[in-house]
């Protein structure tokens, strides 16, 4: 099999998934609930990119920035309307989780109301794939890897080199103690939502650019995103990156493997060629998820 190509495809997929998984893991880390609406925020953002780019004619970079900004504000608004009252009621985390499911359904269908359920594409010119170290990548894919890498570095610097990052880590460790140190945890939570949503928009747009954009995309990517977050150790942003890379490699390798050859024990038997149908690609993340839950529920890195 074509190893450089598998690695290149995995890098693209990992860049997309990790930007989404980071937001999910941050919300889980600070608010302690699994946000099932996360990918739907991201796809709302991807549709806003489509609006700014296709309808208003802005260039791609500004469209993404603007969409990330708007979606970040939407995230804060939904927190104010739904999750903050739940926090004040001291509701169980399970209630927040079920609420996020309701929000997911509502958001996905609001997108459908505005843009209908048909598929959309961004107006990108057709580009010739480039040959890099034996792998063929389109300039868009290279852009995705590059954007992913830059975003990760920016995230790391934000978390470790700024006062904001320090405060965020403080409320993640111990909210009461952080409040005692005059850190306004509600304000930090608002910024956390903004960050999670805007990172999600970048990730969601990258997936939509590489494939297609449609309202149900949010649901179609939620299982891989959760899998990446849990695989690396939920609550840990570096775990989310590692988890995304692991999952991306697993997806590309499993689909490329010829199980007929493996089962034949290097030619002893003849099973012909047995490959896993690409229809089962989403099932790979499920299997990985179950495996990690069974063997190491804290994920690869565990809680930091």
């Amino acid at each position: 099999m074509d190893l450089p190509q598998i690695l290149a495809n995995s890098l693209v997929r990992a860049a997309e998934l990790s930007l989404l998984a980071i937001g999910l893991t941050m919300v889980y880390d600070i608010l302690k609930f699994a946000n099932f609406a996360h990918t739907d925020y991201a796809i709302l953002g991807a549709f806003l990119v489509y609006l700014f780019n296709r309808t208003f004619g802005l260039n791609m970079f500004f469209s993404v920035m603007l969409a990330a900004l708007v979606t970040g504000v939407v995230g804060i608004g939904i927190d104010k309307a739904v999750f903050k009252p739940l926090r004040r009621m001291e509701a169980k985390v399970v209630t927040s989780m079920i609420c996020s499911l309701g929000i997911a359904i509502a958001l996905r269908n609001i997108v459908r109301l505005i843009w209908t359920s048909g598929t959309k594409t961004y107006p990108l010119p057709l580009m010739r794939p480039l040959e890099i170290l034996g792998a063929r990548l389109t300039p868009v894919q290279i852009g995705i890897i590059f954007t992913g890498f830059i975003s990760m570095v920016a995230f790391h610097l934000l978390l470790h080199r700024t006062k904001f990052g320090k405060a965020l880590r403080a409320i993640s460790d111990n909210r009461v103690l952080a409040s005692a140190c005059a850190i306004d945890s509600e304000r930090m939570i608002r910024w956390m939502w903004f960050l999670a949503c805007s990172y999600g928009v970048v990730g969601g747009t990258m997936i939509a650019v590489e494939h297609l954009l449609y309202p149900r995309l949010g649901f179609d990517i939620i299982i891989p995103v959760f899998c990446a977050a849990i695989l690396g150790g939920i609550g840990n942003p570096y775990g989310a990156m590692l988890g995304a890379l692991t999952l991306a490699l697993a997806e590309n390798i499993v689909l490329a493997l010829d199980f007929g050859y493996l089962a034949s024990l290097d030619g002893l038997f003849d099973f012909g060629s047995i490959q896993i149908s690409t229809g089962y690609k989403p099932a790979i993340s499920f299997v990985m998820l179950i495996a990690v839950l069974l063997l190491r529920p804290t994920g690869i890195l565990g809680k930091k």
Partner: protein
Amino acid sequence: MPLINFLIYFLTMIGIYSVLAMSLNFQVGFTGLINFGQVAFFCIGAYTSSLLVVKAGAPLIVGFLGGMALSGLFGYIISIPTKSLKADYWAIATLAGGEVIRLVALNEKGLTEGAFGVMSIPQPFDWFFSRDTYPLFYLLLIVACVVTVYFALSLLTNSPFGRNLKAIRDEEDLCLSLGKNTRKLKLEAMVVAGMVAGLAGALFAHYITYISPENFRPIETFLMWAMIIVGGRGNHLGAILGAVVIQLFNISTRFIGGYVPFGSDFMSALRMVIIGVLIVLFLLYRPEGLIKERTKVYDLQGNNMK
């Protein structure tokens, strides 16, 4: 006559969804297991029963029992890796499990006919009734099932087994400290819920006589969730009431569809926006649902104080 037919269809669907909602309520409202993949049971029940009857030529009763058995078995299997996990992992694992079941139905074309679906599924006792009276008979069959499931589940939840389940929901550690095998109890609860939902799947398949993976999209799970949140968790009547309310809304807006100047896609999207918002509003302002769970309060001597 068309209005009567519509009413019968409507009541039949309410009946099927009542059974599904009672099954979900049994997991969520009584045991505290957050199942976001409830549709998997529905799908397995429907496919097993119709494939057994259509492809293997088994009698209908074997199909129904097979559907229930396999669905219960799935409840057992999905509980094995997840039985000791926290609620959020449960939710994710079951959501993913539900999708995998649909993918199998979609991709294993040799077994399930893939996206074409299973056609001309036979109906029970159709030789006995004329075409006009058959829907009424099926409605009665479904009502009988709803009543049976209602009493069977009530019996279970009022038994010591049911009290143990509620103890898991309220305070799992306490339940463990009293020497209850909570893992085993959760497993048993999933098997029971799986069998009940499998029955609903079989009833559905033999009612509409054609099933495809499109019938078992995750949105069905969310509808069932809306039912138990609106109706009220922790009591079986709440689940039935929720099924009535949500189906009333769901089907009546489909009926209105002809009179408003919007396309069907717009209407179905609008419907789901409202259902999503309804879930959030209920959880925020009336978390106990329309019918509140009846709790018993005991004094120190163990007498019921209410």
